[in-house]
């Protein structure tokens, strides 16, 4: 199963990179936020992959099956929290974008920079 493991991690890495690139490279603010979402989601996948035991099952206690192998619940908890943090961040960022759009009339970062420079 080494290959599957590698596959998982590789996927995490690639997603992470795509997300990160999107955050840094795109000029559009909404795309930045979307990129951040991708980036974070990749981290979630990393954590969840850590918690998995092959042949295990979801960590909900089964009454009549004493020998069941459960996957590790801890990463799940962490990621639940992290997802929430992510959505909080997203909503705040988007609210900011709305305000920026109202204030500047654009959501392209380079255009905003231009406006700022003109002012100074």
């Amino acid at each position: 199963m080494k290959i599957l493991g590698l596959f998982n991690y590789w996927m995490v890495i690639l997603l992470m990179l795509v997300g990160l690139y999107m955050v840094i490279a795109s000029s559009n603010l909404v795309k930045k936020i979307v990129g951040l979402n991708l980036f974070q989601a990749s981290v979630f996948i990393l954590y969840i992959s850590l918690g998995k035991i092959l042949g295990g099952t979801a960590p909900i206690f089964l009454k009549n099956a004493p020998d069941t192998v459960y996957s590790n619940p801890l990463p799940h908890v962490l990621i639940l929290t992290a997802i929430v943090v992510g959505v909080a961040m997203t909503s705040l960022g988007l609210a900011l974008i709305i305000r920026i759009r109202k204030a500047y009339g654009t959501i392209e970062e380079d255009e905003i920079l231009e406006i700022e420079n003109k002012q100074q």
Partner: protein
Amino acid sequence: MNHHIVLRVVAKLLIPSILLFALYTQFHGDYGPGGGFQAGVIYTAAFILHTLVFGLENTKKIISPTLVQVLSAVGVILYASVGFASIFLGGNFLEYGALIPSALPHAANPGGQHLGILLVELGVGITVSSVILSIFYNFAAEDDSDIEADGIPNEKGKHE
């Protein structure tokens, strides 16, 4: 959206069930997947659906933004006060075992634990649903004051 008959009828059909389903998720977090957060989101989903179909103003009449704001605070306070309550009842912060008096040591008091989890999840649910609803209200608000930028033309492009 009164003219959009299909959506209106379907929404009417679904909303009560969604609400109930949200509450079910809320209270069955112990037994299966679910819990306060998910419940909160689903609960809000019902309201969002209502907004989509019947309009924002109508939804605001049902549950006012002020109430939403208050509720969001109430949720956090509920959670935190469970923590404080357990201190006052002689345990550590968030030690649910202290919530129900018993001769047993707190750690071995699953009843208290259960109660604590229930309350806490309720707090989560209230906060999450009201916060998301409040965020949604604010995002969806019609804002005709519109773009006050200095001289930057509002570029409206075509979608593909």
